[in-house]
Every structure is written in structure tokens, then in C-alpha cells.
């Protein structure tokens, strides 16, 4: 599989009058074509910021301070170098996005059909009812839905309409930012199945952003674990869930609430939110059970095998303990 999108040394900073927060600290990711890649992390880890940065949608007070995002199409395009007009033609046709809490992002006073028409018009496509029927059918909705208002739809149906809208211009890459967060478990599964089916039907690359590692493991081919603006572990899904190496990934995996884990969940104190603020060294230092003084000295990462990357200087300790 060839790469379709490469992120190189991307950094994003949110600046307010009295302080600066770096949301992304020089991350490098290569997304392959025709894969589902999951971005997993807690709130504040920078996962949504990365989604927005790929589309060059970061707005004040955020700023992309360095790095490039390269789309490998017929020719390589650096998205960060596009001007407003080029971006307008690029977004939605090449990369589109389902935003966080997008169930509430449909316009409540226009019918679903008109929202599709607006999208077509904005991207100078033919305004065609047949295309709407096709998109709705693909998302498993009946075509009566196009004459309805958003308040007549359930949460799951609204999310399907949103995904159909994101697919309106036949993009190559779909970024789904927490597409199931406000939905109940039954509908959540429906949406997951739908997203997974799109990969094969439309030959799509999907970037799936979520905080729930068990959800990610169900659909993703590869996983990227985010912590404090860095990718601290990445690799094939099976490798990560069977052989996690970073202490933070291990913690995430131990906190899954499933029907079987009932008795081994322990009372657990919250992590301190004070990340290691210095620019070098590991962000997880303050909460890490296996920290050592070497952790603070320099940024370290190690590639265990071809696909498995981990940022932990004590990785030998982890391997030996297991």
C-alpha cells in the first residue's frame, strides 16, 4: 500500500494573551491509501487539532507554527502552501471531514435536500436529485429523508446524513472526529459498521479520531496513540492491543469497561494534568510508574519492528516485565 497523506514535523500552538499551549509537538505520520487509521487519545491530547490541521482549518488563537502536510495525488501537494481559492477546491473534493458533535451541525430550518444542494453549489457540482438519492441509499437511509427537517431525524440518522454530506464530492480521504460520541451503543455500532463498509465500497481512506481504544480496535487497521500532542505509540491494531509497550497505552487498555472486566477494575486516582512542560523528554513523566531520570533528558523513540513505534526510553523494562 502506498502512502496517501504524509504529515511532517507538524506543530500547532494556541496562543492567548498570557500563555501559549502547544497542541501538537512536531508529529510525523504517514497515512496509507485505503486504510482505516485510528487516532486515540484523551481530551486535550491534540487529536482533533490534528484533524483540523490536515484541512488547514486551524483558526485564531491557534497557529500552525511549522511542518507540512503532503497529499500524494497525481502529484504531491503541500496543503499548508495552498491559498484560499485552492483550499476551497481542495477541501471536500479530496479530503472531507465529519466534525465533532456534528449531529447538531445540520441547519435546523432547511430540509436535508437543500443542505445537499448547498454543498453541491459550493463546490460547483451539478445540482442533481439523483446524486442525493444515491448518497442516501449508500448510507442506508430511505430517500424520503431528503424531504425531512433535521429535527425529524434521530441522532443516528443525522450522523448518517452528515457522513453522506461529507461524501458528496467523492473525496479520497474522510476524517471522522468522534463520530459516535453522543450516540447510544446500538446506534454507535450501526455507524461503525457503516464507516467500515465505506472503505471497501468507495475505496476510501478513513482517519478515525476517538478516545475509546476498544472502538478503535474494532475498525482500524493501524492505531496512533496520542498523548500531550505527541504520537507516543503507533502500529498495527493487533500488535498494539496484544503487545502494548508504552505505559500510557497499557493504562488505556486496562481501563476498558467491558462485560468481562467487572471484577478487575480497581479504585483509581486521576492522573495529574501537569504534563512535563520542558521541551525535551517524555510528557508522561509525571504520571509514569516506570519513570527514571533519563526520561527527562531527550526525546526518544524506538522502532521495535517494521510497524511498531514507541516513544519510551525504558521500553526494555516494559518488555522484560511482561
Amino acid at each position, binding site marked *: 500500500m502506498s502512502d496517501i497523506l504524509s504529515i511532517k514535523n507538524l506543530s500547532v500552538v494556541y496562543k492567548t494573551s498570557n500563555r501559549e499551549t502547544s497542541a501538537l509537538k512536531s508529529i510525523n505520520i504517514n497515512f496509507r491509501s485505503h486504510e482505516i487509521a485510528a487516532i486515540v487519545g*484523551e*481530551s*486535550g491530547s491534540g487529536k482533533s487539532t490534528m484533524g483540523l490541521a490536515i484541512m488547514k482549518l486551524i483558526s485564531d488563537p491557534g497557529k500552525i507554527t511549522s511542518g507540512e502536510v503532503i497529499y500524494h495525488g497525481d502529484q504531491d501537494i503541500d496543503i499548508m502552501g495552498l491559498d484560499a481559492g485552492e483550499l476551497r477546491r481542495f477541501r471536500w473534493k479530496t479530503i472531507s471531514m465529519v466534525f465533532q458533535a456534528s449531529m447538531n451541525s445540520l441547519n435546523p430550518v432547511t430540509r436535508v435536500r437543500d443542505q445537499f444542494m448547498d454543498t453541491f453549489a459550493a463546490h460547483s457540482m451539478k445540482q442533481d436529485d439523483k446524486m442525493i438519492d444515491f448518497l442516501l441509499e449508500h448510507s*442506508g*437511509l*430511505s430517500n424520503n429523508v431528503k424531504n425531512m427537517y433535521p429535527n425529524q431525524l*434521530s*441522532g443516528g*440518522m443525522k450522523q*448518517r446524513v452528515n457522513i453522506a454530506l461529507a461524501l458528496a464530492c467523492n473525496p479520497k480521504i474522510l476524517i471522522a472526529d468522534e463520530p459516535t*460520541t*453522543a*450516540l*447510544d*451503543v*446500538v*446506534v*454507535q*455500532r*450501526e455507524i*461503525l*459498521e*457503516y464507516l*467500515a*463498509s465505506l472503505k*471497501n465500497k468507495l475505496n476510501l481512506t478513513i482517519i478515525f479520531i476517538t*478516545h*475509546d*481504544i*476498544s*472502538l478503535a*480496535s*474494532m*475498525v482500524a487497521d493501524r492505531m496512533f496513540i496520542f498523548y500531550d500532542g505527541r504520537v507516543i505509540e503507533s502500529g498495527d*491494531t*493487533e500488535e498494539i*492491543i*496484544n503487545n502494548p509497550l508504552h505505559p500510557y497505552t497499557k*493504562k*488505556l*487498555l486496562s*481501563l*476498558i*469497561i*467491558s*462485560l468481562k*472486566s*467487572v471484577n478487575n*477494575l*480497581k*479504585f*483509581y*486516582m*486521576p*492522573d495529574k*494534568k501537569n504534563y512535563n512542560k520542558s521541551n525535551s523528554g517524555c510528557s508522561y513523566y509525571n504520571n509514569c510508574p516506570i519513570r527514571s531520570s533519563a526520561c527527562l533528558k531527550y526525546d526518544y523513540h524506538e522502532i521495535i519492528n517494521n510497524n511498531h513505534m514507541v516513544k519510551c526510553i525504558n521500553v526494555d523494562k516494559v518488555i522484560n516485565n511482561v
Partner: protein
Amino acid sequence: MFNSNESEFLKFSNVTKIFKSGHLKTYALDSVSFSLMENEILSVVGESGSGKSTLGLIAIAMETYNSGNVYFEGREIKKLKRKELRKFREKSQMIFQDPYESLNPFNSIYTSVSTPLYGFHSKMPYDEKRKSVIKILNDVGLMPATEYIDEFPTKLSGGQRQRASIARSFILNPKFIVADEPTSMLDASSVAEILTLLKKMKEQYKYSMLYISHDIASAHYISDRMVVMNLGRIIESGSSDEIVNHPAHPYTKKLIDSVPKLGEKLDNIENVNFIPKYINGGMKGCTYSNICPIARDKCKTERPELFDLGNNHYVACFYPLI
């Protein structure tokens, strides 16, 4: 289960709640009967739209009902006099879903958490109020409390905000708690934090709780007993272990199958179909009959009543799975 009992704390008997909009009637609760024992955690599980939140609001006397009766410690809630209602309010508290909205961003943690004290113990001197706030913050794991007490909610993470919100619910030492999806807006790692906290608090504060959730896995973790709701009706009830291990209603089975499992592969991605399920309840037959895989003619015309399968396991289904 429906016989009156001395340790019965809260009792619903044939409660019906109808929301009217024009000539459209929505049955949020359709003759619901159950009881909550003293020192028990009972969870109410169901999809969105099943009426579980309405049930919680009625239990805490924030919503009226059309017919039936609700008894709190043997007395009918509807007939409480003003002073008695105030006593009831002191004894019963609610934990809300979204800690980002339930804490006023302009108030410090002290102000938010101590508000109930100002309402019910206005003569208590300031020092004592502060002391009890510090004590409760320590109890919910915001330690050391002196570091958090004068902070504003914006400085706290989602899990910490929910802890603060729980502290506010517990400051009057309530006997009855309604927790309406207290974990659904939180990160996967904070969910485990909050659940273990609620379980720990029960040993210390001795309360009865209605835990309302769509996630049967977390409900199983926290509760002794469970009722499952579908479109305003209770369709199954019994001990949590019994229901999770031997679900008798096809709908309960579907809820259990929908829980995300680590590393599980989705099987049904080739034919994802739209299932029309929006019905207003109040129908003649079983509420689940139009999508039930094992429904027969009888299910559509006759209402199944709850019956005992043994071991206090009740199900409302003509063709139970066990």
C-alpha cells in the same frame, strides 16, 4: 418484586407519562412498575428515547406524571406538602450528564459545591461550610482539596469536573441519588475513574441510587440490579449478573451485543440497512415487535406482561430466549 416491602425505598406503580404535541402522543413511560430497595444501586438501561431520563426526573419529583403512583419511603410524592417536599429535596440529589455544562464557569469550585449548604443550612458559619467542602472534595478524590477549592472549572479536566459535580451532590449527605448518564460525556479513562468513585462512595455514604445509562457494561459494573427499558416499557429486570449472562429478551441481547469489545471484528459490514424504529410507544403489542428477529403475529397484537423466570428475573416476552 411488586409486593410492598419494608425496605422498599422508592416505588413506581403503573406510572404513565405522556408527552403531547398537537394530536401526537408520545408515551415516555407506559405503566412502569419497579422498586428500589434501601442501599441498592439499580440501573436503568435502554437506548435514547426509551424513557429512562424521564423516569429519573419523575423519581426525583422534577417531572409530573399522568397516571399511576410514585412512593418515596412509603409516601406518595405527588401529595407531599411544601415543607415535606423541601425535606425530600434535601435527601435526594441528582448527578447530571455533562460536567462541562452543569458547573457554572463563573463560580469557583467552593461556590458551586457549597451552594446546597447555603440553601439548607444557611446558618452554618462560613468556616464550617468551608471545612465540609474540603472534606467532601477529599472524599471524591480531588486531593489535596486546598489546591482545588478556589479553582474555576475551566482549569479542570472532564473527569475532575464530574468529581466536583459529584461532590456537590453529596454535600448534604443524601439518601437517594439519581445519576443520569454520569459518564457518557467523559473520556474512556475518566469513565473508569467515576464508576469506581461512585462505588467507593456507596460504602462511605450509604445511599440508594438509580443509575441511568445506555451502556450495559458500565451498568453491570456498578449495579446490583437492572431494569431494561424499550420505548417506555420495562421489558426485563433482574440481578445484573443474571441479565448480562442470560438475557431473556431479544432487545437485551442486542444491547449486550452492541457493547464494543477490544479487538473484535465487525461482521455485518456488507449489508448495512436502515431500520425504521421511530415509534411513539403506546402500541397494542410488544414495543420491539417491528424489529425483533423472532417476532410472531401474537407479538404485534398482544401486550406481553412481565413474568417470573425464577431467581427474581422478570421478562416481558412471549418467546424468551431461555
